[in-house]
């Protein structure tokens, strides 16, 4: 995969980064997807939990390294073969965490309708900001998936 530069709106994205960072900090100690190994595997779950948390932390660090001086001066973020997959995983983890915390009170069908229309509906201001983060992380995923496999994203639409 060649290096891909994407220009983002600084005024739209920068205000979201503090909340995304706060949620990323929660992922230092909470798995985005709880382990589903059952009671018989508590020892395995404990060992895996630490490794998976470390992986989450590293992926989120790679995501935040996109928002460097170049982003804040030019609005540009760059993907390449080294950071594409970690950033993709970080976006997935963050979206799951947003859904299970900041957007937990929004019913599935409401969230789906809002995603389709990219509007805020009747969400309260806090949920609106969380939803904007949720959408932004989805857009980042779409950009990366499109470059990994140009046919892939069209199938979601």
């Amino acid at each position, binding site marked *: 995969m060649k290096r891909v530069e994407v220009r983002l709106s600084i005024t739209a994205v920068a205000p979201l980064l503090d909340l995304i960072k706060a949620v990323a900090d929660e992922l230092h100690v909470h798995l985005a997807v*709880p382990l589903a190994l059952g009671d018989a595997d508590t020892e395995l779950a404990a060992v895996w939990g630490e490794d998976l948390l470390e992986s989450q932390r590293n992926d989120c660090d790679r995501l935040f390294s996109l928002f460097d001086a170049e982003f804040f001066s030019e609005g540009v973020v760059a993907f390449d073969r080294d950071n594409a997959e970690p950033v993709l995983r970080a976006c997935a983890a963050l*979206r*799951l965490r947003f*859904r299970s915390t900041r957007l937990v009170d929004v019913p599935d069908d409401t969230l789906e309708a809002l995603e389709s229309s990219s509007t805020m509906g009747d969400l309260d201001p806090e949920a609106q900001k969380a939803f904007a983060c949720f959408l932004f992380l989805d857009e980042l*995923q779409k950009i990366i*998936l499109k470059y*990994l*496999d140009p046919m*892939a994203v069209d199938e*979601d639409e």
Partner: protein
Amino acid sequence: MSVEVEKKSTWRVVFLNDAVTRMSYAVMVLRKLFGFDEETATKHMLEAHEQGRSVVWVGVRENAEAYVFSLQQWHLSATFEPDEES
């Protein structure tokens, strides 16, 4: 001389649905981890989406564990269970 043949039990890797993860992401991960073609990965993704779960691999426990760990690293929910048919 007697030869004892140990029959190793087999285990299933079960991919579980979630309502958040983008479908194209799940398909990409299934292709990457299991070497599925697009059609097979999509079939498993849709089965999980519609029925809540899809058995994506069957084999020895050690490998099943490794697959479930990898799926979790990609934030796809999964578990492993004994294959009752083995």
